[in-house]
């Protein structure tokens, strides 16, 4: 499966990924682009953490 096929599966990550991946080969990945990825990770972790904690909060 090609990177294009991977990203076709991701709606929210698509735009960010394309933007960075396209420039990565030619100009390299900058610190600012890595920061944008970290920010996206933060949002995804917060969303998933909330879902992962559902059972834990029910148990208490």
């Amino acid at each position, binding site marked *: *499966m090609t990177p294009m096929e991977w990203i076709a*599966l991701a709606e*929210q990550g698509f735009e960010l*990924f394309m933007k960075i991946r396209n420039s990565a080969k030619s100009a390299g990945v900058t610190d600012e682009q890595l920061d944008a990825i970290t920010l996206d990770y933060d949002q995804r972790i917060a969303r*998933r953490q909330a879902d992962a904690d559902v059972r834990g909060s029910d148990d208490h």
Partner: protein
Amino acid sequence: MPTRRSLAPILAALFLFAACATTQVQKARIVSVDVHAVLAAVDDAEMTLCNKQPDNTCKSSVPAWTTEKHVEFSKHLVTALKAGRALNEGVKAVPITGQTKADLTAVSAELEAVTGLVKDILPPNSTVVIALTAAKDAVLRLLPLFLEGA
């Protein structure tokens, strides 16, 4: 006293070393971009499958994909996403540390764990299964590149 001629090989070696280090750092950074893309694909695919309701339960098109499965999936994905984020921060530093390499291995382990969760529940043509297959394939391709090159 060193002459200009005697300094030339040393300078050439230094430039070559700097160029190689830059290439390795860029390679590691592209690996991080790829890891983020595959984890985002898995994350989004499962969220779509869950079809979360206002009461935080899943109403999936696959009845066996219950809220409990979603919670278990989320626990593993939180670990994978945290490892991905740590890796992404790690590739900013030079040289790449052993911890950053371990983060990529952790992503791989969590992808295996969530694959176990979906096994025998989701059909092979499920978007989540396809995304997971693609993600594992990507990480397998990236691991040797990252471990050797960075």
